[in-house]
């Protein structure tokens, strides 16, 4: 243990260049998407040339038409109802599917693969497309919007919650198996309590997404504020549009603070 003995360092682990390679690949992909030949076509000088065209719209947006307020109330309420119903149904459907899609809570590779594949497909279809097709199938109104939102929500919640289950400790589940519990019993008695915070978080987040998404769904006739947005936009009433945007902002802020309070109590 002489202080003068030269330190013998262990051989350096191999593959330390890998993160750098990853960074280079990301930069390369970014560069390619920006390049005029292969990437998306856009140029900054278009902004310089055209910005004045939008200026009067921005000015109108800065002067909300407060007298329009009473007419926005019923569609706003409908938007909130759609969001709440869709969040509730989506959460109820998502909970068992989340447990089914995670390796820890469903060791069967095949049923897990089926759930994951179906949900990847569900997630890859835009909610606006769901709404368009459903409006054609069940008619204009809140119902197609709600169904579209439920599909959208299930895709998000199951993905996020099942991924959070994968990183949970497997030990408690093993204890349940050692005590003779079936997988279903173990999932209910043990895995569910551990997955609960992630589930509550995602459900609250999805509620906020639904308020925003249901404004867009109205554009294709699926109820809510979107129908009204489409109407005022057609008549270039940016002052009225401004009021609607303010209302959505207020609702999102309120949901954000309410969900923060719920999270503190439930999690």
């Amino acid at each position, binding site marked *: 243990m002489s202080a003068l003995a030269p330190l013998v360092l262990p051989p350096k682990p191999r593959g330390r260049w890998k993160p750098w390679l990853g960074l280079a690949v990301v930069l390369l992909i970014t560069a390619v998407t920006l390049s005029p030949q292969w990437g998306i076509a856009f140029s900054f000088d278009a902004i310089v040339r055209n910005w004045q065209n939008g200026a009067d719209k921005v000015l109108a947006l800065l002067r909300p038409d407060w007298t329009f307020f009473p007419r926005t109330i019923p569609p706003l309420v409908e938007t909130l109802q759609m969001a709440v119903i869709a969040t509730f149904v989506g959460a109820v459907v998502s909970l068992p599917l989340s447990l089914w899609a995670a390796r820890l809570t469903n060791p069967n590779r095949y049923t897990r693969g089926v759930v994951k594949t179906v949900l990847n497909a569900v997630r890859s279809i835009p909610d606006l497309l769901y709404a368009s097709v459903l409006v054609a199938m069940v008619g204009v109104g809140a119902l197609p919007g709600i169904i579209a939102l439920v599909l959208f929500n299930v895709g998000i919640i199951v993905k996020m919650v099942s991924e959070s289950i994968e990183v949970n*400790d497997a*030990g*408690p589940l*093993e*204890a*349940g*198996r*050692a*005590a*003779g*519990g*079936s997988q*279903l*019993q*173990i999932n*209910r*008695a*043990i895995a569910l*309590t*551990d997955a*609960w*915070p992630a589930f509550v978080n995602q459900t609250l987040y999805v509620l906020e997404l639904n308020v925003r998404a249901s404004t867009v769904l109205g554009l294709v006739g699926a109820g809510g504020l979107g129908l009204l947005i489409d109407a005022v936009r057609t008549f270039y009433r940016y002052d009225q549009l401004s009021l609607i945007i303010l209302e959505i902002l207020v609702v999102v802020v309120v949901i954000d603070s309410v969900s923060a309070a719920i999270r503190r109590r439930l999690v």
Partner: protein
Amino acid sequence: MTDLHDSAAAGVHTPAAAPWSIRMRDVNVRYPNGVVALKDVSLNIEAGEMVSVVGLSGSGKSSLIRTINGLVPISSGTLEVGGRHLETARGRELRQLRGEIGMIFQGFNLARRASVLNNVLVGRLAHTPTWRTLLGLYRADDKQIAYEALNSVGILAKAYDRASTLSGGQQQRVAIARALAQQPKLVLADEPVASLDPPTAHGVMRDLRRINQDLGITVLTNLHLLDLARTYGTRLIGLRAGEVVYDGPAATASDAVFETIYGRSIQYEDVLG
């Protein structure tokens, strides 16, 4: 820590009527990655014995304990637990067998966000219909068993606390209560005190000894500390590289015996003190 006498007298933990024996014949365990964890292990453990399994980490002692309740499948050989063949048991039959075998883990393995009571009720899963578990409607009898199990390890007062709020020693007692709630014929403990400080470790070992002496349950404990193995076991099984290299009484096992098992001289770290 209260003693187990009360509950034994109350007649709740009376599985001692028929504790289970273990018969292993030429058991081999090979993991999918090619590692051979157990090599031709043959053991007879009689009902009511208190056995310490000793070996360095990687010696196969954890695999040995986990084969006994089927958490680790055996590659060849036969394994009878309580007179029933475990190596061929599947599905419901395997769950019923596991329901009779309590297990205690190094990391306690409690559902951290669940209450202490709900963790102990996990010990009743094998005796509970699935619909009751799904609805969270445990039978009053099962709850009573859970309360008594908690009482017997002295932490009934914590029944409604979240498991994660308890200290390490308390969490391990909850885990022992979970095993007791199974009303087991056999208890397996995989390094039950390796995460605990010395006084707490002795407390947990005394709990295990009482399970054996007062309730008559067969207890198999993995340990890597030789003084604990000597003090609390009546029989010592030494494993080295997946093979049984010693099998004899625990109290008289000399340091030389441990040196055989460990394949090196005894060191300061090998005793808890």
